[in-house]
């Protein structure tokens, strides 16, 4: 019966325009089902039905429903963590895992009562809602963080739009004397862009309120009837709007590269760096600079001090900017870091960047470090977890790829321990692809061989064959860690 339910949930597939394939490639409607964790009283909510649903997920191996497993490391039994780990290793992709301790704290931080926060479920990709009480509009804003970075580099202009002045002028970086000056310029552009996005969202909201009330939907929520107010007017108990961000890791690494190579080591002048970026690191000297920036500057995902500082500062700044706003329904904005396939689509239209990324290359997904930049698994998990807490109330997607192993039992043990450590350190969410570079390269070359290969994209599952070429490549190059060594496996042909 559960199997039939799973199929029923999965068969709702909407038609989407082609352009949306760039940004949301391979997605179904992503109906989410959330298992495990604690109940509203804070007690272990894992029961027989949880295990049955995990079994069905394992047996069917289908894209939807988007199954999410909550895990509370103080309340849920070790058997449950082991079972979830087993299902992930056997389906190679699902369910995604959520840290109850961190997520409940994040919802409480936005003013939800403890009882309501504990009763959260996942909607869409990775967004958190108190079930039936929260009307979150979680993808109200999808903001490309690389755009304000480019505008800071080029004084309000972007390579893709040429001479057009888009953002405010924040100064020519060539005249800057410290990294702090550049950081201020970046924030000027970022804050300006956020203001635009919020204004647009408020306008949409006003139109929505006037033209499209949702009486039927309102009936299913706590709040509208008691308050006598439609959902769209702020009738629900909680009324947030989500703002997700694309290109987080690429922006942090670019900030690191500027701070270290331009201002600390004075390895390159800002003028030379801008020239190289404009020319997409062309020529021998350009390529030398690109490799230097790629290999010898601090990386998010390594616990380097500079990288930790810049990643934390960016998270904190975004949180503070959004908290200064109230949306049209009277609720807060929630910053988040999930990207669907926007990181591939938007990467395709952005210029070269200071951390050595070439024009048009994909960005890293979700909150995940740049591919190849975080060679050690524990350092990677620690530096992502260090960003956790109340400043990411909208959720994040961390994508990890692990080498499959022959000895499943041993792998399950290490897999579970590693997730546990990441959660205790504060990580909100993690999802996996249990596959190798070679497997995915072959699946791209010869789709017939892998007709049902299911992958985690960035918050949802898709069949690999359905993804566009750019997104296939992004999945291929994602760092593959080996759980027998805790190290990144070198990409084929690289040493």
């Amino acid at each position, binding site marked *: 019966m559960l199997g039939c339910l799973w199929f029923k949930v999965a068969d709702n597939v909407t038609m989407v325009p082609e352009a949306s394939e760039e940004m949301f490639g391979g997605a179904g409607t992503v109906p989410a089902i959330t298992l495990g964790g604690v109940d509203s009283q804070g007690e272990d909510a894992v029961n027989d039905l949880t295990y049955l649903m995990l079994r069905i997920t394992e047996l069917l191996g289908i894209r939807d429903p988007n199954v999410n497993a909550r895990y509370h490391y103080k309340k849920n039994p070790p058997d449950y963590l082991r079972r979830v780990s087993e299902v992930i290793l056997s389906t190679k992709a699902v369910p995604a895992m959520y840290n109850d301790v961190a997520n409940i704290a994040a919802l409480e931080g936005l003013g939800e009562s403890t009882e309501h926060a504990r009763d959260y479920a996942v909607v869409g990709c990775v967004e958190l809602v108190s079930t039936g009480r929260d009307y979150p509009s979680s993808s109200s804003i999808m903001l490309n963080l690389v755009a304000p970075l480019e505008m800071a580099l080029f004084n309000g202009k972007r390579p893709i739009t040429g001479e057009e002045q888009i953002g405010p002028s924040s100064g020519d970086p060539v005249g800057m004397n410290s990294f702090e000056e550049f950081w201020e310029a970046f924030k000027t552009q970022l804050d300006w862009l956020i203001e635009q996005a919020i204004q647009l969202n408020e306008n949409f909201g006003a139109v929505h309120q006037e033209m499209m009330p949702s009486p039927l939907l309102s009936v299913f929520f706590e709040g509208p009837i008691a308050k006598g107010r439609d959902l769209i007017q702020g009738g629900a108990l909680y009324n947030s709007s989500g703002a997700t961000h694309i290109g987080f890791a690429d922006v942090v690494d670019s900030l690191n590269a500027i701070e270290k190579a331009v201002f600390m080591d004075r390895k390159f002048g800002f003028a030379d760096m801008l020239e190289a970026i404009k020319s997409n690191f062309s020529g021998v000297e350009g390529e030398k600079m690109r*490799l230097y920036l790629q*290999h010898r500057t601090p990386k998010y995902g390594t616990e380097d001090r500079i990288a930790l500082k810049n990643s934390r500062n960016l998270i904190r700044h975004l949180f503070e900017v959004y908290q200064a706003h109230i949306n049209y329904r009277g609720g807060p904005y929630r910053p988040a870091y999930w990207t669907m396939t926007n990181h591939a689509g938007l990467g395709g239209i952005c210029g070269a960047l200071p951390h050595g990324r070439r024009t048009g290359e994909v960005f890293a997904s979700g909150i995940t470090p740049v591919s190849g930049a975080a060679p050690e698994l*524990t*350092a990677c998990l*620690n530096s992502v977890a260090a960003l956790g807490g109340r400043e990411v109330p909208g959720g994040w997607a961390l994508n990890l790829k692990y080498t499959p192993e022959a000895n499943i039992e041993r792998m399950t043990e*290490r897999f579970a*321990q590693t997730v546990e*450590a990441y959660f205790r350190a504060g990580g909100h969410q993690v999802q996996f692809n249990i596959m190798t570079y070679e497997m995915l390269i072959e699946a791209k070359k010869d789709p017939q061989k892998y007709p049902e290969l299911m992958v985690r994209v960035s918050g949802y599952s898709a069949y690999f064959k359905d993804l566009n070429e750019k997104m296939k490549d992004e999945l291929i190059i994602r760092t593959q860690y080996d759980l027998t060594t*805790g190290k990144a496996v070198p990409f084929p042909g690289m040493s």
Partner: protein
Amino acid sequence: MRIALVGDIGRYALHDGPGIRTTVFFKGCPLCCPWCHNPEFRSPFPEVAFYASRCIGCGDCMPACPEGAIDMERPGLIDRNLCNGCGICVQVCPGRALELVGQEYEVESLLEILLRDRLFYEISGGGITLSGGEPTAQMDFVGLLLGRLKGEGINTAIETNGYFPWSVFAGILLDYLDLVLFDVKLADPAEHRRIIGVDNGVILANLARLIELRPDDVVVRVPLIPGYTATEQNITALADRVRALGVKRCSLLPYHPYGLSKAEHVGLAVDSSLPEKPLGPKEVARWRQFFDWAELVEP
């Protein structure tokens, strides 16, 4: 000594004691086993490793070297007689082709890194393993570090060649150690001297004292090296010897050729008699029989 030279810090180590561990590879070892699997940690000085496959041939390192040790035409790039391990070339190389092996740490700065994975140790029953090179060659520092680790409640292990002054080891290290992984290689003293450079008398005497004090916390590790240690005569004698000392737990370490390429990277000559293939499971099973009296611990 409050400063140590460390060759590498290996996180998520699964083969140097129980659980998920971090292994510190100290630089410098008084022995010279031809099959050494960490030859880049043998010298007690910093060295530059050169990875030819990553070199883009830009030539930036050549003028940067103050000693004139780099020549683009030289197969291994660096003249090891001239190089003093200053690391300047590493700073300019854009391609990750040059890496400095050997970095100085104070106890506090090393401790800060080692504690980063504390949650992983706690959850998996792991901890810290001190290896090398030979950690007891930097005994004062190791004593201080172990003291701090114990103060933090971290499980500790050492991997040693056993060639150390007993009184110092027993005086400043042993109380802070939960596990000693003790390597023995050759039973015959003359062979030991001929191949490894020193007598095995000190090593076996240290093992005997250690077993007397802490019989349950010692794992004797025997590398299985074709043509050297993995001979019927040696394994028979070695197994008898350690059994007679009262050793309870052993590990066999099958030969693997990865030491060979690592030696090349730091410009060391490799022993051409060593095979290019790892020791197969059949061979390993054969040598295991000689240790059927012991608890065999998976390395």
